[in-house]
């Protein structure tokens, strides 16, 4: 692998042990890939907070846990700096940054999480706590190289913004944030960004949930290997909420990390442009029936009482919170139902300013930040036998937890109706 003088200096330890270790790992990562050189990273999101999987390392010291798990070393290398050229935001943690009791968490865990997050902040990470870093201005521009721990953000960045990112992982995002480099491989190389599969969408897509279901329907048809589909169809009134819903769903149901949309994404003005002269490996059609089939297994059939309604995965933006407030204005959530709305705290502050928070609270709901039900996990979810989500990702991930809950998935309005009536009814199932 060819390294620049600056990169070699980092590898030789001239910028300290932390940068050296990060660079060693990045170089090893690049060697495994067969990359010839590295590229400069200017945006990153990192997975801070006291996540449950870190508990395998039995230590009180954040830096020891960090070193063993994120740097994969058995010494202790303090995480005390990041690349000054890279803008780094924190992803969700397993705790809200401001409250713990409503999430059924202990003060001890809350404080541990705060300690972890605070150490990251001191190292140069902007503490945001969101799966949707773009809500606070973290948006790579076309051709910019970035890293993220969020699959949905990888695919959004590659596809919608024409920026460059591979799906690499939590550790690698830290390495890149520290040394400011990643292997120049995969989607970081222009020649690899062409489409491989052609998907004709014949289903009419209106609401965000239908775009989510398109992601799942494609996931049922695409190969498990890495591929770059391009979709064509008569898409109307496409907005960012629909697109983020689609890309997030596609990311979790496939290994796909880039997907062109003809006429919408910048590298796909036409089908030909998307393929860039490369062969079409496969081609298929997604019909309305495919969308409906994708939906059915995601929503339980039993009717009955509802205990939890959760909105906002990915985290809601201010427009979505406004829609929630507009709908809930003057209404009351059914007693015994916990209505949770998830976002990032600066957006919540804006919701406070606009009066949306008050409307939602007066209706009996509450806005939470910095995490989500699945990331908090069993501690929160075990007490709610019947749960409603407006997100394919949440409802899917909840099903893989070892719990025996009823899980319902529908659009935001029907989910709010369920919160108001306290019941799950057949009519709340999504249908066209």
């Amino acid at each position, binding site marked *: 692998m060819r390294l620049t003088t600056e990169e070699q200096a980092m590898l030789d330890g001239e910028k300290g042990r932390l940068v050296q270790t990060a660079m060693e790992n990045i170089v090893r990562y690049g060697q495994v890939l067969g990359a010839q050189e590295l590229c400069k990273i200017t945006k990153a999101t990192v997975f801070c907070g006291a996540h449950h*999987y870190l508990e*395998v390392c039995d230590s009180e010291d954040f830096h020891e846990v960090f070193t063993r798990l994120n740097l994969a070393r058995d010494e202790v290398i303090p995480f005390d700096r990041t690349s000054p050229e890279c803008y780094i935001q924190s992803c969700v943690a397993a705790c809200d940054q401001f409250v713990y009791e409503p999430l059924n968490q202990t003060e001890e865990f809350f404080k541990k999480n705060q300690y972890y997050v605070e150490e990251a902040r001191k190292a140069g990470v902007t503490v945001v706590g969101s799966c949707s870093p773009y809500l606070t201005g973290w948006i790579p521009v076309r051709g910019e190289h970035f890293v993220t721990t969020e699959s949905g953000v990888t695919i959004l960045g590659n596809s919608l913004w024409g920026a460059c990112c591979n799906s690499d992982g939590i550790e690698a995002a830290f390495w890149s944030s520290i040394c400011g480099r990643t292997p120049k491989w995969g989607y970081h190389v222009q020649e690899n960004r062409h489409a491989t599969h052609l998907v004709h969408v014949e289903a009419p897509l209106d609401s965000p949930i239908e775009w989510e279901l398109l992601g799942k329907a494609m996931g049922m048809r695409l190969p498990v290997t890495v591929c770059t589909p391009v979709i064509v169809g008569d898409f109307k009134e496409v907005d960012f909420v629909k697109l983020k819903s689609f890309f997030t769903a596609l990311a979790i149901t496939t290994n796909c990390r880039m997907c062109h949309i003809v006429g919408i994404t910048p590298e796909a003005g036409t089908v030909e442009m998307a393929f860039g002269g490369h062969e079409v490996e496969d081609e298929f059609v997604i019909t309305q029936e495919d969308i409906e089939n994708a939906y059915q297994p995601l929503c339980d059939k039993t009717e009955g009482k509802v205990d939890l309604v959760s909105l906002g995965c990915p985290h809601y933006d201010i427009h979505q919170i406004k829609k929630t407030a507009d709908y809930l204005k003057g209404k009351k959530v059914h007693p015994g139902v916990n209505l949770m709305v998830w976002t990032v705290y600066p957006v919540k502050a804006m919701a406070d300013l606009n009066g949306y928070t008050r409307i939602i609270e007066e209706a009996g709901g509450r806005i939470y930040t910095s995490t989500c039900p699945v990331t908090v996990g069993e501690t929160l979810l075990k007490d709610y036998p019947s749960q409603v989500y407006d997100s394919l990702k949440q409802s899917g991930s909840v099903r893989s937890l070892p719990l025996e809950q009823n899980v319902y998935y529908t659009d935001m309005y029907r989910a709010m109706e369920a919160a108001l009536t306290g019941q799950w009814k057949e009519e709340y199932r999504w249908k066209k």
Partner: protein
Amino acid sequence: MEKIILRGRGVLPGIVEGTALVCPKGITGWGGIDPKTGEIQDWDNPNKGRTIQNTILVMPGSKGSNGWSCYFGAARAAGCAPKGWLFSAIDSSAAVASAVMQIPTIVDFDKDEDPCSRIENGDYVRMDGTTGVVEVTKSSQRQ
């Protein structure tokens, strides 16, 4: 005793040997293994309940979310790492996991030498992460 030789690209050095654990559909990283024991938890994985600890782990590549490597990394930290691993074709998540695990790694096999189809559970595998040579002793032929 039937022996076959497969050749891939050796990417992390070291010579190790052990019993193969083959997951032709891969393993989901996030939530797919219990890092404390190395046990596979994927509900649809035929190897559910088996541990990856001290095996030669064979997979096509990574699977699922960007959080793939961290559960393997956590298993490493807990002392439950495999001895070495083989990937049919490398991808970025699997490469990060390899850099984390620092175990002998061989990747990018020809289609007709795909370790996921040529190696079965229980086969005895000797691999050289420098040369990329994988020596497989088929278990059905062994005493």
